[in-house]
């Protein structure tokens, strides 16, 4: 069974503005300026403790910059943690950025192969899956066209099809399904449900709360890089919405504006 265990995991992100990024800077700093003492890192994840078991569908919510994407990338192993214990069992497939992991000038078919090889498929293991991927995308002859002629929704569909056909144990989705039309979304949901039934893990970060509420068994609410609340989706999302409405830790210009207009 796949599982994700995070114990007190920190992630520090280097801040470019605070350090030398060219040899010129390095020389100028070394020769003429005193070393700066300002903090060179921001804490992107702050003591995250988390345990996800097979068959769970976990939603990740929070305001922009709260660390949703960073958390998923840390789970995928893309970002290194700076401290704490981290265990991810099972092969991970991630759908983070629609444009990520594609060559724009390559055809749909070429991109399917590239992406699948990146997931560790071989030409022989992929052979049987190509038809399934093509059928799932419904793209037909369109797959002979370069990717740059695809619409965003279709690229989303393509990467989703490849991800699902590579049969990952853990699927991480970041703000991804929202570009698909209703039909595509229903199709994706059916696949995700099938994955969950097989005991796999799915984690979805996003702002589409209605979707997450309908779909996730559990939700993490992140705030400034740490877990603010972790529990049943219904409950956490309810609290989140309430907090946002009350202006949780923020002064909302929209609220002020509404106030000025006497709404």
């Amino acid at each position: 069974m796949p599982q994700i265990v995070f114990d007190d995991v920190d992630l520090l992100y280097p801040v470019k503005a605070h350090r030398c990024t060219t040899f010129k800077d390095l020389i100028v700093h070394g020769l003429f300026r005193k070393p700066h003492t300002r903090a060179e890192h921001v804490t992107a994840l702050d003591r995250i403790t988390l345990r996800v078991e097979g068959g769970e569908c976990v939603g990740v919510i929070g305001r922009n910059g709260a660390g949703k994407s960073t958390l998923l990338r840390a789970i995928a192993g893309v970002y290194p943690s700076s401290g704490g214990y981290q265990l991810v069992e099972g092969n991970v497939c991630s759908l983070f950025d629609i444009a990520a992991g594609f060559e724009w000038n390559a055809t749909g078919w070429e991109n399917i192969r590239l992406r699948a090889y990146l997931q560790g498929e071989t030409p022989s293991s992929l052979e049987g899956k190509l038809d399934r991927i093509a059928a799932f995308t419904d793209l037909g002859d369109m797959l002979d066209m370069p990717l740059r002629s695809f619409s965003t929704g279709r690229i989303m569909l393509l990467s989703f099809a490849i991800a699902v056909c590579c049969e990952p144990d853990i699927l991480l989705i970041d703000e991804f399904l929202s570009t698909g039309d209703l039909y595509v979304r229903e199709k994706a949901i059916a696949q995700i449900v099938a994955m969950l039934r097989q005991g796999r893990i799915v984690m979805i970060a996003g702002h589409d709360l209605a979707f997450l509420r309908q779909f996730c068994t559990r939700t993490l609410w992140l705030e400034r890089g740490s877990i603010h609340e972790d529990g049943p989706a219904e409950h956490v999302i309810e609290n989140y919405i309430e907090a946002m409405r009350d202006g949780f830790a923020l002064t909302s210009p929209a609220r002020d504006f509404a106030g000025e207009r006497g709404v």
Partner: protein
Amino acid sequence: MLREVWQLRHFWLALAKHDIKDRYRRSVLGIGWSLIKPAVMTLILTVVFTSVFDVSVREYAIFLFLGILTWQFLTESILQGCNSFRLGNTYLRVRPIPLAIFPLRVVLSAGIHGLIGLAAAVLAIWYLHGTADFLVVLALLPALAILAITAWSLACICAILNTRYSDTQQIAEISLQALFYATPVIYMPESLHKTGWLHTLVECNPFASFLELVRRPLLHEEMPGATSILIALAFVSVAAAIALVALHRVEKRLVLWL
């Protein structure tokens, strides 16, 4: 790390294949361009330098063509290698991948172009000088392996530096330009004064040894000199060691610099 690179071979081979295809998309001559550029350079420089140096066109043209091919392969690998992590950023953010794959992708596509030129050169030598000894051509294989590993190592080192310090590519360009004149690409090493400083410089220059490794078997049908082999081997070992250590040190962190 090298085992992981091997496991993902289908991925980087597909990437390199795409790069080569993409470079010549929409061009009538297609991959022929990789031959035309060094050939035209050779033509122009041959016309100029056969009137400066006391050499025959027949001898000089092939000498020059082999020099240009080897030099072009190394510089292309290094300079394009500088940007290889930035180009690979899109994949590095999908899942953890061994970094060495991206410089390798660049070296592969430069290597294919180099090999096409080399095949043309071998054919030209056969045509001009009659059949070459097959064993001598075989001696070229270890030379090509050394060249490939050198290019890969240097591309890895430059890629790391360029990701951390974004002016690396400019520095590399200037350095390579200076190195070009200390390397017998367009002039013959024999034409230098034996006591001059340039002669000593060329003797120690590993890039000169690489050229010797390629030219000696093809042009003179003999094994390269022991000094050249030793210098080339020493350089490739040091470069590969530095690349491996550097990659190991930044393997996990580098994605945060991109």
